[in-house]
């Protein structure tokens, strides 16, 4: 599709390049030189991007995996005991914490986001759509540390009051803050997917006498399912990797949460709280790098999944 005719770029006179000193020839030569250098430049930029990814994988991966020289993988993955001061490096509780937090966030955020997306694409009048979408875009732009701060100063007192706990930090607070953070992303992407459903589908549904709810539930949402799924995966990737908003409300105690309001910890919060205080050349530090490597692999796996969903959609279409 974008196969630009390369032949048009090559000047006809190139084959028999004669020493021609006219101004025109000089200009042409310069233009061609620039053309070649620009081509090299864009190639270099794209390879430097791949280089950055390779650097992330190699540097974080190498330091992370070197932890297994002094620590058995079984202890790292399955032990729940993270007390690095006493040489116990079990990341099990943190891994479970991350998975629980992500699951809880999705349980809260996905139904609301999809409902908002349906509201935006099918129900809201045009003027409201415009305002609403702008507001969601503003919400995306608010820094995560501000979300964390709001969670800390506004949400935690409410939770403390409602639960009677004296801290209130924990999975509930963290998942509520995260839900609010991923909500705009998930609903905007789903909104785009729903809006992209052809009008003729809707017309066909209405022509069969369906109500709007029936059209939404049986035609429009199922046809946009793939787009909505990608939105959910994007939100999930963000929830897994989010650090600052979580660290402020989760309590940062490496233990399995008994309930939703006990202080606990996740991979990201544990890394950021401890990394500055440890020697680079210690098992502790390497274990933290291994956690980051785990996060990295999770995020990359989600992207591969996302691409698989999308390419399947293309071949089905």
């Amino acid at each position, binding site marked *: 599709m*974008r196969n630009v005719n390369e032949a048009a770029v090559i000047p006809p006179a190139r084959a028999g390049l004669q020493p021609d000193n006219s101004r025109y020839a000089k200009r042409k030569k310069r233009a061609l030189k620039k053309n070649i250098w620009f081509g090299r430049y864009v190639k270099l930029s794209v390879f430097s*991007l*791949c280089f950055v990814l390779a650097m992330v994988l190699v540097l974080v991966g190498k330091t992370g995996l070197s932890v297994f020289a002094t620590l058995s993988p079984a202890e790292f993955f399955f032990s729940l005991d993270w007390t690095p001061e006493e040489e116990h490096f079990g990341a099990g509780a943190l891994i479970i914490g991350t998975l629980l937090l992500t699951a809880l966030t999705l349980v809260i955020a996905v139904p*609301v986001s999809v409902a908002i997306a349906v*509201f935006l694409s099918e129900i809201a009048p045009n003027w409201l759509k415009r305002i609403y979408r702008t507001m969601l875009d503003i919400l995306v*732009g608010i820094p995560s*540390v*501000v979300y964390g*701060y709001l969670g800390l100063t506004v949400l935690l007192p409410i939770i403390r009051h409602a639960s009677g706990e004296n801290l209130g930090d924990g999975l509930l607070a963290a998942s509520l803050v995260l839900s609010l953070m991923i909500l705009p992303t998930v609903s905007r992407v789903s909104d785009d997917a729903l809006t992209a459903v052809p009008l003729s589908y809707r017309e066909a549904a209405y022509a069969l006498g369906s109500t709007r709810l029936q059209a939404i539930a049986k035609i429009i949402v199922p046809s946009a399912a793939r787009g909505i799924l990608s939105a959910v995966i994007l939100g999930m990737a963000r929830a897994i990797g989010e*650090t600052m908003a979580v660290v402020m409300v989760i309590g940062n105690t490496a233990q399995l949460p008994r309930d939703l309001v006990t202080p606990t910890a996740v991979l990201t919060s544990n890394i950021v709280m401890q990394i500055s205080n440890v020697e680079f050349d210690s098992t502790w530090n390497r274990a933290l790098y291994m956690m980051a490597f785990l996060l990295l692999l999770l995020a990359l796996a989600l992207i591969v999944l996302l691409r698989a969903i999308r390419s399947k959609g293309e071949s089905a279409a």
Partner: protein
Amino acid sequence: MNNVYSPPVMNSKRHNRTVRALNRLATAGFWLLGSLLMLLILWLLVAILKNGLFRIDFSFLTKVPEELDTGGGIGPVLFNSFYILFLSLVVSIPIGIGAGVYLAEYAPRGKLTEFIRVCVEGLASVPSIVFGLLGIAIFVEGFHIGLTILGGALTLAFLNLPVLTRVTEEAVRAVPQDYRDAAYALGSTKFQCIWRVVLPAALNGIITGVSLTAGRAFGESAVIILTSGLSTSGQIWDFNLLSPGETLAVHLWYVQSEALVPDARDIADKSAAVLVIVVLLINLTFRIPLWLRSRRTR
């Protein structure tokens, strides 16, 4: 989607009535949810801004933070925020746009291009904390320069790169093929075509993307904590690349969790307000030239 065919023996009138009632109920429900969320968002913005907005004065924006006493300002951290943002954009915009142009205009269809795309998307999904650890591994352990503005800015640039690449690619792809055909018909080289025709036409989208990236980078904290540290050199106009470079977003976290000043809550409130206002302003100011341009060409 199992549409069970309901035979007309069933009371179809009653069925119809239930369906309609459900429909009305659902519409009401969607409206309710929509307005509740809208209120929540508005309340959120008000909560951030009202706590700080009216108490911010010029001295707060320019004074040096205090360690123990009340009345500290955010001068140096605000400066560092802009300085690091500027440096990271200087590094990441040319590369990001170059890579985006490559993907949209140069990349041949094939395995290699697919691989590069996976790299870009993969890089975009890397959690910021992982970039922070990368920054430590490179700048603190590799080059032994400690926690510096330079390390923070470059690590932040890594974080910006994939986003810039993606928005550039999308904007360039959206330029109609006719433009390119016309440029080539006039005998331009590929570079001339991209530089004079395609990029100006895509500028709108690219600038919007850059402004979103800049807003995100301004508020980024996990990366900066790990690579630029939790302190400043104590001077406001410190252009030294090797000074420690706490930024405003980091300061908000630091004041809230570790600082000893008695008015920490007050400073945090004001810092949060400044942070959000600046992010909103960044999104606005980047669009002003665009807006002027579209008025001029009209």
